[in-house]
């Protein structure tokens, strides 16, 4: 083995959502330290929720993250309704599935174009691409805008959705809104084809690590995103209520994100986990793309999470079109519009209880858990974020990557690690309750 010293210390990793550092220390060719330090200031959401009305939980927890505000909204609403014993209507569930598709599509596109593509095209950010790959940048902005417009129509806005609350929707799409959404989705198809073409030409690093993947699973034919049990590639299957037995969270001093493990030392969630567990249920067009880029389950190269996101984008667009056509056929029942507020008029019946929301958001499975008293006041709250679940797994990937690449220069290793961490699309604001690379000097 190469007996050298490597010290990497990347402070405030860029092109990730939130604040984190990568720290690597190799002495005499021996890996002493390899950490993903989460330095995002803790924001104490779970603490802030205690004593507040369950009808405020969605509004507050949406603010955990601007990128996955719709994801947090959906997990929060599901947990809240489960806690108070409310069953949403079929129409409400369809609209929520639609919102979740828009969320995953929007976030995946942002990640693929703005955060990952610059690495694969060998530049620092999308900014130089404005000149060198102008068409690509314009396409990215156009697709991002399309997702925003979809959310504007469905829930008022993408960042902190307005109309999706406990009980249903405060404003329902009209016939013309459904047509407009359909028009935007169909308009995205040529850009999606071009995106696939771009991805086909991108070279992802070769790296494998045998990993346990965790995602929602179900017995029906639908690719499970909003509802299901929790399953793993090691054969675990549990009801969402037992989420704590899945995550087994523990605190480490170098990170304000808690760590998680299941059947092994760590596990991974996200697009690649969902792809590995539920490939058969993807839309046939999405499966065709997977075949075309030679991605098949079970894939254990974490860098290919980005490719799995691309495949999910195709699925989200196609399934959204199907959902809207179904809604058009059955007609939206405007009488289901809800007026809830703080439930001043007791329009929603409240029982004391404990509820769990488990939703597949862009970065993986998101859990919200609330304990509510008979007045609808939150007594205990817990949110377990996909990135928190991934951090531990990322560190094991990083260790293996460094050990296998000791002959390379510090700069090459640093880039490889940054790309590795970015491939998980970490959402650090969310998990701090996370990225720069530090190769520290062991003698300091």
């Amino acid at each position, binding site marked *: 083995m190469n007996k050298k010293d490597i010290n990497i210390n990347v402070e405030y990793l860029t*092109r990730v959502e939130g604040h984190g550092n990568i720290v690597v220390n190799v002495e005499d060719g021996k890996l002493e330290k390899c950490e993903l330090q989460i330095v995002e200031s803790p924001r*104490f959401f779970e603490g802030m929720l205690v004593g507040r009305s369950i009808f405020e939980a969605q509004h507050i927890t949406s603010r955990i993250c601007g990128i996955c505000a719709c994801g947090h909204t959906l997990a929060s609403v599901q947990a809240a309704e489960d806690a108070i014993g409310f069953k949403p209507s079929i129409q409400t569930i369809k609209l929520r599935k639609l919102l979740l598709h828009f969320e995953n599509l929007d976030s995946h596109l942002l990640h693929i174009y703005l955060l990952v593509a610059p690495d694969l095209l060998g530049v620092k*950010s999308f900014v130089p691409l404005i000149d060198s790959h102008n068409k690509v940048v314009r396409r990215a902005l156009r697709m991002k805008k399309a997702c925003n417009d979809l959310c504007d129509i469905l829930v008022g806005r993408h960042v902190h959705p307005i109309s999706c609350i406990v009980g249903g929707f405060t404003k329902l799409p009209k016939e013309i809104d459904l047509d407009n959404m359909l028009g935007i989705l169909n308009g995205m198809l040529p850009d999606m084809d071009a995106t696939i073409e771009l991805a086909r030409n991108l070279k992802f690093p070769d790296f494998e690590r045998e990993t346990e993947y965790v995602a929602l699973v179900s017995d029906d034919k639908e690719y499970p995103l909003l509802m299901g049990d929790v399953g793993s590639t090691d054969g675990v299957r549990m009801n969402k209520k037992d989420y704590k037995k899945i995550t087994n969270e523990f605190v480490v001093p170098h990170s304000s994100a808690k760590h998680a493990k299941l059947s092994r030392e760590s596990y991974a969630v996200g697009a690649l986990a969902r792809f590995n567990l539920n490939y058969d249920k993807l839309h046939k067009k999405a499966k065709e793309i997977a075949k075309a880029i030679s991605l098949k389950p079970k894939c254990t190269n974490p860098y290919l999470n980005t490719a799995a996101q691309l495949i999910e984008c195709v699925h989200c667009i196609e399934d959204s079109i199907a959902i809207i056509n179904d809604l058009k056929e059955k007609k939206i029942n405007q009488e289901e519009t809800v007026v809830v507020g*703080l439930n001043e008029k007791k329009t929603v019946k409240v029982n004391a209880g404990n509820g769990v929301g488990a939703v597949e958001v862009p970065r993986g499975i998101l859990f919200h858990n609330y304990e509510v008293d008979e007045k609808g006041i939150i007594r205990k709250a817990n949110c377990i974020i996909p990135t928190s679940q991934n951090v531990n797994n990322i560190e094991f990937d990083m260790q293996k990557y460094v050990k296998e690449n000791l002959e390379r220069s510090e700069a090459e290793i640093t880039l490889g690690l940054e790309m590795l961490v970015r491939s998980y699309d970490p959402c650090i604001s969310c998990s701090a309750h996370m990225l720069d690379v530090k190769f520290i000097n062991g003698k300091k």
Partner: protein
Amino acid sequence: MKRPKIAFFDFACCEGCQLQVANIGEALLDILDIADVVEFREVMSEKWDQSFDIAVVEGSITDHHAIERIKMIRSRSKLLIAYGSCATIGGINGMKNNFELDEIRKEVYGKDYKYFDTIKTMPVHHVVKVDYFVNGCPIYPPEFITVLKAALSGIPYDVPDKSVCIECKFNENICMYEKGLTCMGPITRAGCNSWCINNGNICYGCRGMVSNPNEKSAKDILEKYKIDLNLILNRINMYNKCRELEDNEQKRY
């Protein structure tokens, strides 16, 4: 004219306001034609270690490291724009101030709570001078453009100090109180075009309170609709808890 340099920074927040800026699209590109964005961590790896003309700051100040960082940013910038509720009024992060800090650290991190440094949440202007405020959770993009134009042309911007109700009436919404709900519209600063009420939800007060709320009229409303005062006070504290610091220990710049 020399091209002005703009840098974006974030503190404790959800980074949703940055996204709102990124989402502006073409109107933003027009402005970027006359200025250089030199730092924007969420989407750029480039870092800039010199001075700049405008710092655009998102998020609240919630630990000791942040105090030092914001002071450093202020010292490097000619102008500072605080944008989003977290930066302008403390916002959602302020709810933390409802609790004893040790108590809330234990609630979230258990026995290992001491690893996690935290101080009372402060809006940016409690630590350094702020030249422009863009309120809202998230920011309302048209207002951000107006403020950025004002900052680039060197003219002042006054944050609207009338209530959301005025915009809401223009939008012909049915009053939430008439629907039997409580709404923060009457005491909250306008400028969002009554975004939430237009979409069937209530106003949560994210833009901060008007400087001179009509207390008598608010009392009349509470009496008319038989609403418990504590319910409203609790609600005010969702976004506006940090205002208490201004009366007590903090100097306002």
